[in-house]
């Protein structure tokens, strides 16, 4: 009931990702400017795009929660944002490694993807803090949804503004633009992107299934033993 189709999804994800990275290392030509280091592009950029979409999806789920007041939407938003935040950490770290490998600096202020993610990461770091600071479950969910909507709208705007600010002064350095890429690189990139998206969806369903199962067990326990093992401590995660 929970997590149906999860196995097929996971398999598909594994296949796509393996295919993508096999292509990256065995088929795709090296970048003319940066050489071998550019391969990180096939990891860093798909993570970034999927994370950005995840944050926006979180905002949409939050809006749905506000509209329907159904706690499940809040859970969907929480998981989406949670996963995107993990991906954001990955984006920042891989981006930093790439910057060091290609340009000798651990950070580049004129790389809009990196800078945007730094801001977005700092913003969403407050999500858990906010949730944790509100005890009443219903209000926690409501406020978290407001945050998700606000932050979800902020993500694309922030990206656009940062890009405007940086490209005005410096040319793009890490070459994360997909314009002017030769065919083979584009194909590999798209497969890597698909794989990363599948990974996100798989993990999302996985975590949703897990949280739903926990909720059911708790309900069963309540019915059976009359004791709500309920966490005596406050949590930031939504419970159904």
């Amino acid at each position, binding site marked *: 009931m929970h997590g149906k189709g999860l196995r097929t999804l996971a398999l598909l994800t594994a296949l796509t990702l393996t295919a993508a990275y096999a292509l990256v290392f065995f088929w795709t030509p090296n970048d003319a400017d940066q050489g071998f280091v550019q391969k990180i592009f096939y990891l860093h950029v798909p993570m970034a795009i999927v994370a950005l979409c995840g944050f926006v999806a979180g905002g949409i789920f939050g809006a749905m929660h506000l509209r329907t007041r159904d706690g499940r939407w809040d859970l969907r938003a929480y998981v989406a944002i949670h996963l995107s935040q993990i991906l954001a950490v990955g984006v920042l770290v891989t981006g930093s490694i790439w910057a060091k490998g290609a340009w000798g600096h651990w950070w580049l202020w004129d790389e809009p993807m990196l800078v945007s993610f730094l801001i977005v990461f700092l*913003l969403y770091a407050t999500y858990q803090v906010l949730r944790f600071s*509100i005890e009443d479950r219903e209000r926690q969910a409501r406020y978290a949804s407001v945050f998700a909507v606000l932050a979800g709208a902020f993500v694309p705007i922030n990206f656009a503004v940062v890009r405007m600010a940086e490209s005005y002064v410096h040319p793009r350095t890490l070459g994360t633009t997909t314009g002017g890429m030769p065919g083979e690189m584009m194909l590999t990139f798209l497969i890597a992107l698909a794989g990363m998206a599948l990974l996100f969806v798989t993990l999302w369903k996985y975590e949703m299934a897990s949280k739903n199962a926990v909720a059911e067990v708790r309900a069963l326990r309540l019915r059976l033993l009359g004791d709500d093992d309920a966490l005596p401590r406050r949590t930031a995660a939504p419970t159904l």
Partner: protein
Amino acid sequence: MLTAVGAILRKDLLLELRTRESVPAMAIFAVTTLVVFHFALDRPTLAGDLAAGVLWVSFLFAAMLGLNRLFVAEEEQGGFDGFMLAPIDRTSLYVAKALALLAFLAIVQAIAVPAFAILLLDPSLWPVLPELVGVLLLGDAGICVVGALVSAIGIRTRARDLIVPLLALPLLIPVVIGAVEATAPLLAEGGAEPLPGRWLLTLGLYDAVFAAIAYAVFDDLLED
């Protein structure tokens, strides 16, 4: 709704006039920040980008001070309950608070900008004053639109004073970018340059988008 907004705004302005709780502190804080910048940057005068940056950071931090206090009266003295019993559009509270903050910021800037011109600024402000006021207003609008919403989110949580700056600062970075990019040419070393239209447009769009979002979600914050 306009009458409701007017009534709440009038109440807040009167309150501030009588108690003088926020604005003097914000103004002093802004000027002190400017002085700290002088020592931190170790320069007698500033121009261009640096001047614009220092100016806007000072305003931003002063605004943070104001944000923490924006809804305090309502929260501590049951104003929220009274407000929700009234048969008015709940978003009017948001609009009124945003406008009140705007008024406070305007007063703070009216004090801090001349102080800045005297203490730190190299080029003269007089020729660019109208444009500067325009940019200040656009930037302030951004700060107030987002700030009032974040303040409302934070006021009902336990870690209120921490949550508000944590939320507001990243959200306001585009405003800082736009405002500084728009202000810098006005304060340029060799004489003022024309205003960059794209940044004014960006600021305006940001203000519009977040005003619309705040308008849509504010109701949900006041439920209980």
